[in-house]
């Protein structure tokens, strides 16, 4: 049994898949380096991430655009063991060309992860709440269940083409920053982001309050359905929703 140890980057994962094919490995698992536990019965091989090899795998999968989508999203899902499900699906699809065979357990699993990540991406497009800073940067902090920042960057860029913004993932400690030209990934001191009040614009309070008012007055009391409300806005997202944190 061979264990391929990779550096948790997407290119690293693709390189590992390349290695599986190059060395015709049959009994193999791919594991992230942080999960590495000594195992007496297996041989550990470190994967050296190689963008050339990663590119070749990616290009090789080009005829299967649906599978490529699913692989990338399954990777962002950060599920333990996802690497091996991805490998299994790649092997199955390259052999049979059946990327839509939802009767196959690996394909169905990838489809379900894709759905989960898609849902989280959509939630973040909805639940990001910007605060205007004194320098006119619009700042938002999030802690999504899955690593969806790379997926939402495009949406926010085309939406706020004329406004400088930053969205920061406190859980994974990185963010995206748009400077009116392009979106970059950035790392900041996350402690400073936990209290934004010191740097917000004076009008921020007004709009914050009015949004909370609006949230209240648009609800209809005789129809209250807390269960449905919670299904749409689960409690774990409340932390950064201003309407759920009344002044």
């Amino acid at each position: 049994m061979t264990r391929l140890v990779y550096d948790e980057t997407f290119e690293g994962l693709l390189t590992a898949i390349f290695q599986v094919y190059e060395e015709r490995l049959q009994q193999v698992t791919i594991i992230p380096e942080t999960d590495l536990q000594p195992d007496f019965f297996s041989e550990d091989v470190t994967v050296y991430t190689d963008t050339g090899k990663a590119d070749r795998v990616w290009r090789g999968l080009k005829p299967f655009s649906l599978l490529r989508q699913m692989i990338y999203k399954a990777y962002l899902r950060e599920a333990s063991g996802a690497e091996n499900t991805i490998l299994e699906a790649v092997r199955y699809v390259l052999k049979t060309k059946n990327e839509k065979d939802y009767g196959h357990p690996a394909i169905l699993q990838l489809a379900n992860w894709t759905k989960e990540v898609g849902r989280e991406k959509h939630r973040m497009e909805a639940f990001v709440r910007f605060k205007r800073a004194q320098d006119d940067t619009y700042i938002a902090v999030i802690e999504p269940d899955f690593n969806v920042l790379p997926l939402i960057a495009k949406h926010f860029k085309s939406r706020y083409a004329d406004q400088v913004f930053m969205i920061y993932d406190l859980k994974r400690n990185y963010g995206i920053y748009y400077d009116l030209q392009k979106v970059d990934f950035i790392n900041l001191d996350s402690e400073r982001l936990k209290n934004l009040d010191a740097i917000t614009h004076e009008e921020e309070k007004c709009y914050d309050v009015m949004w909370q008012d609006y949230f209240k007055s648009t609800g209809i009391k005789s129809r209250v359905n807390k269960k449905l409300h919670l299904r749409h806005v689960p409690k774990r997202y409340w932390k950064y929703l201003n309407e759920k944190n009344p002044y």
Partner: protein
Amino acid sequence: MNFERIREKLNILADAAKYDVSCSSSGSKRTNTNKGLGDSSGMGICHSYTEDGRCISLLKILLTNHCIFDCAYCVSRKSNDIKRAGFKIQEVVDLTINFYRRNYIEGLFLSSGIFSSPDYTMERLIAVARKLRLEENFNGYIHLKSIPGCSDELMKEAGLYADRLSINIEIPTVSGLKLLAPEKDHKDFIKPMETVKNNIAIYKSEKKLLRSTPVYAPAGQSTQMIVGATGESDKDIMYSAVHYYSTYKMKRVYYSGYVPVLEDNRLPALGTEVPMLRENRLYQTDWLLRFYGFDVRELLNKDHPNLDVDIDPKLSWALRNLHLFPVDINKADKRMLARIPGLGMKSVYKILNARKYRKLNWEHLKAIGIAMNRAKYFMVCDSKDWERRDLEPQRIKSMILQSSQSKYQKMYNQQLQLF
């Protein structure tokens, strides 16, 4: 900006607008090409949900709640003693832009009470949209209400700035409208719908010839009906919905369970429960018509003028048509798969794809995620077990009800106890 004053207006005018249920923000094609603010080319986004579980995607407000009409069902009617307010055009523009920049909303839903004349009111609504589009470079979603009785020229201009136009028919029957809104004429509702439909068609065909033709109401038009205010049957409601879908090419018809807001002997008393279950069943029927290939006459007809409350309309239809079942999941066509109770369109597509590669059995179907407790009585698959007993519809219904937990169970149990 006088913050406290605007805040007060917002509270009054959002409160008065909340009975309009439409909050869709999808279906437009307005991309952000001018490096302006906003983009409404993608799918709609619900930025939050009210405590009653409805989506909040637009800033939904009235320009004013002053109104010259006295419609019995409306909270803003002339004779109702409530606080009145009115926004200035610039105030609405500022609110919209600032909410949008903070990612609170997808855009603006602007309606209004009718003051001085329909045309005057419509002009003010258009002025807000024009300012947002031309001065603020705003590409977010704008939903404008068409004011009954306004002129064709104004409707034509409105569609150039708005993504969606709507006019609420409110009362599904002409006689009901006469009773509750005697000053309004049914024709005044129909005329703007007709104008919008024609303009959409004209602009679409011109766009084929000349690419620079501006878009006209790209997200189409919609309407809304109040359910349970007058004694209409589900058949009345759905047949008129079908009429609006086909005649005026509506994108959506919304059904709004009547919330008693006023004491009036023509209407259900204050404190009457909102018919939410009925509303839910109407939406299910609407979906069956639009996405599942059903004809309204199959679901509602003179032998069956009202939907069942305890089971969904598809199951109810299937129980009346047991001779068409069981369906073989590995052979049936898409149309018939979509008619099996417990299968949604997503499952249908998954099944169509998956069965190309292997015959599907119960395990596969469970993994795909269909609602087995209902579906199992209506299908066979690649397995030796299936429901072999020749069951009566009543029997199947009671077995399904026993094995399921409906969130509405309380409601229909209470109703049964009354009789």
